[in-house]
């Protein structure tokens, strides 16, 4: 299964540190920072590179501060073309 790469960006100054996104992430790639923002809350950060862009964190974020990016699906490139199977087999390899 081809892995889909995703990414999120968090507006950490509006984060209230409710930890709902870290609980909801199926890849466990979010955690709460040790630092605090200007309001005094520990904010959420993306710490792993295994994000798939499933938007679960954005769905449960009460402040709607998470923007989700996802890689576009790559079209499969053929590595070999097989033609003329019944008569004489042709295989073209790029």
């Amino acid at each position, binding site marked *: 299964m081809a892995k889909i*790469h*995703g*990414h999120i*960006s*968090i*507006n*950490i*100054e*509006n984060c*209230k*540190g*409710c*930890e*709902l996104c870290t*609980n*909801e992430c199926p890849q466990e*790639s979010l955690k709460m*920072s*040790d*630092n*605090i*923002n*200007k309001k005094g*809350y520990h*904010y959420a*950060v*993306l*710490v*792993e*590179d295994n994000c798939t*862009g499933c*938007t*679960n964190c*954005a*769905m*449960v974020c*009460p*402040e*709607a*501060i*998470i*923007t*989700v*990016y*996802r*890689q*576009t699906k790559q079209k499969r490139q053929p590595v070999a073309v097989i033609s003329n199977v019944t008569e004489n087999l042709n295989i073209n390899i790029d």
Partner: protein
Amino acid sequence: MTQLFPEKTDDPYLYLAGDESYKCELIEEMNQVWRRPDSLIDTPMHYCPGCGHSIAHRLLMEVVEELDIVERTVGIAPVGCAVFAYNYLNVDMQEAAHGRAPAVATGIKRVLPDRILFTYQGDGDLAAIGTAETIHAVNRGEKIVIVFINNGIYGMTGGQMAPTTLAGAKTSTTIFGRDPSVHGHPLRIAEMIAPLPGAYYVTRQAVNTANHVRKTKKALLKAFQYQIDNVDGTCFVEIVSNCPSGWKMTPLESNELLEDEIFQFYKLGDLKLPGKE
């Protein structure tokens, strides 16, 4: 030394989270699949951390944007925690007296029939002081959407018992737990109004997990679409929410309590669908 207050920058991370955040080089090639709706005013909300009200606000604005009715939507703000809803929802809003949002919506819908009306009410507003207005508005079959946020407590005034508080729940006015023989039984508003002939679509949803949020959005989309189609009846969407401050819990604990106890009493799902009795 760690940077305590990260500085604002112009890159897509908005604010760089120091060196601890994972930085992706492929972000230029990626598609933006989700972002904050434009109709939700870009300001920090006054709700407590983890409150379900903010998610309901966001879902309403997503739905209104998807149906392309931002210009002709009128919302009625309640009294309660969501009293400042007009500071966040960038549609026409009207503040109503305590519990009287369905009555105000009735008036606006009858004067301006091409507008899409929704009321946004909590359980102190809709289930306590405004029960009569709610029942009669639904019984008349007013063509409005009633969004009912049920968190089983009076969150704004400091966690007093609401009519929807579960039996045995400790609040600041029922310190030994709610006793049904003294304080009455919890009220299931959605079950109460579903048999009324004026109710067209009655459903109960939740916003505690991502899947429940997606289902709630679908229910709201359906309710607004019915009103655009000008069906003869009221659409009622109850959203069971958490109240971490009122329940004296962390947001995660309050979401677990919803799954463990509250959904046993307030069962999720559609209570009345069009064409079915």
